[in-house]
């Protein structure tokens, strides 16, 4: 099953990863407005899901999605995002790979589900903000402010936020995937390009 990658596959991976990343970046820029920041895990997959579906339709081999996730992880890391992004990216990549494989890289349904599982990598970027940050920050506060104050702080950033984010990623990914499938049908099938 492990087939050697052809140049065409690798170039497809590179170009579509660039497109995916650029759209993610463009949407994430809106995230600098604090209210949108919270909805980033919902918005990014909706927009980025459209080209992602075209990418999935070009995938014929095992491993291409995983490479995309590794590349995104490295890129996030060299631009200064903290390390947990690695775990989440590669995890989401492998999960998506499995989903696509069960659809034999052809089924539209598994592509849509794949779009939603792939979006989970975004948690890697956010988890550091909300949790890695919280634990370490609160620990460091214990010395200065005392346990009581820290307990109060923990209440402000509750754990359910994390699950809300997972839900947003999955829902956003599904919407993006469905939109992408619609665009594929409307434009690319007609032109014989997908």
């Amino acid at each position, binding site marked *: 099953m492990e087939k050697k990658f052809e140049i*065409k596959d690798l170039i497809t991976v590179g170009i579509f990863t660039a497109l995916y990343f650029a759209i993610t970046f463009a949407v994430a820029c809106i995230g600098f407005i604090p209210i949108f920041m919270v909805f980033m895990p919902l918005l990014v997959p909706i927009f980025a899901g459209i080209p992602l579906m075209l990418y999935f339709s070009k995938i014929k081999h095992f491993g291409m999605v995983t490479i995309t996730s590794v590349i995104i992880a490295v890129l996030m890391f060299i631009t200064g995002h903290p390390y947990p992004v690695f775990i989440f990216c590669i995890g989401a990549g492998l999960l998506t790979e499995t989903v696509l494989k069960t659809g034999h890289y052809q089924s539209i349904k598994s592509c849509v589900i794949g779009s939603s599982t792939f979006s989970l990598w975004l948690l890697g970027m956010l988890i550091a903000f909300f949790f890695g940050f919280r634990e370490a920050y609160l620990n460091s506060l214990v010395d200065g402010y005392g346990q009581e104050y820290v307990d109060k702080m923990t209440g402000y950033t509750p754990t359910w936020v994390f699950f809300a984010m997972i839900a947003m990623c999955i829902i956003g990914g599904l919407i993006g995937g469905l939109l992408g499938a619609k665009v594929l049908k*409307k*434009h*690319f*099938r*007609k*032109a*014989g*390009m997908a």
Partner: protein
Amino acid sequence: MIAFKNVTFAYSATDADGRAVEQGSISGLDLTIQNGEFVVLTGGSGCGKTTVTRLINGLIPHYYNGNRNGEVLIDGESVPDTPVFETAKKVGSVFQNPLSQFFNVNTTDEIAFAAENQCCEPAEISKAITETAASMQIEKLLDRNIFELSGGEKQIIACAGINVLSPDIIVLDEPSSNLDSEAIEKLKAVLTDWKSQGKTIVIAEHRLYFLRELADRMLILENGRITKELTAAEIKALTISDTEKLGIRPMMRPEIHCSHQNKDIQGDVLLLEDFCFTYKDGKHGINIPRLELPANRIIAIIGHNGAGKSTLARNICGLERRCRGTLTLNGKKLKAKDRLHHCYMIMQDVNHQLFTESVRDEVMLSMTDKSLTDEQKIKRADEILSQLDLIEYADTHHMALSGGQKQRTAIASGIASSKPVIIFDEPTSGLDLAHMKQVSDQLKKLKDMGKTVIVVTHDHEFILSCCDHIVRLENGCAAENCPLGK
């Protein structure tokens, strides 16, 4: 030596309904190219000349799939049975589109790329690059960002990359289609140099004038077969009426000059005032304090790359908001923002300006008049489409159309927008004679409809076929503005 023995090839593709179809390309080709020979392949679009180049560099069958018969041999070795990686040592390739043939962002890396792939010693590659740069006089292009270069400079970088590995055979697929006359001269110098080194050169081209002295043999293809073979002496003897009969572009570059009669513009005038604009890099721009153009004529804007032709077109169209110039049309003075409502541009790459899922929708998208009902819009759209011979494609997606049909779709939506000024940016780059004539007919039709047509072009043959007036730009200034002398 390259030998084709009874080669037939058909591409496999999928049509709009997802069925597999075969597109015939070449059939029963027998051809022998000697070492050191300079062969020109020409003929209308889709005649199979690109396919011949792909058979030589091994992209067929290693990249493009299809049904293949017969043998292709280089020095007795079969190309289809050799990995592309090995063929690349012997055959260098230059492609049409400078945008998509580069793998690197840095020019020096790109020149070194082919040699790096063959695992040459880094020190030797660097030496070869220095030598190539000196002989081609491109030192100032080294270690630059490729995206800052002009189309001509990009094509020269592609040629420099070939020089470093120095293969015996070089195939070029329409290398001149995006170049201006100055860049074509540079390309010609490179080709002359290669020929003197004894390299075998196979070039597929529509524009032929720069190959006149270089070609040893010219093959005219039609429907995948060689219909005519010309020797060097015969090529040099070709007159304009000969090439016209053969259906190919002329072997000489027609000169363009001003007519000295009727210098004054008759009829309505398009007045450009205060068109001064500089790009943020501070180098390129235009500086035209006043320019009078005849309305309802076809006006060609000519000049070298970087003279500001496209900048002027963009400014007339109103795409540069910082431009403070005004255009006076029918007594109305239009600022940049207003000009967007009056000018329509057909861009060089029309793919960028087509958005919807069918040709009819594309035309209807341009009808912004809210008083029209949908039925009226459809009726009007179908009228325009029949005028441009597109009615049978009304429900087709634009991506399934040919280049010329896409361009006509863009023209159709320009007509639908009922804007009085229509601007074309290099409409004939890379077109064969028949298609070029088709475009010039479209322009004449637009003129008959009462539109003012402005064409940015460096295609002299095209200018002579339809334009009435020329504006020559030099360093951003209008150096000449006169009716075209016939």
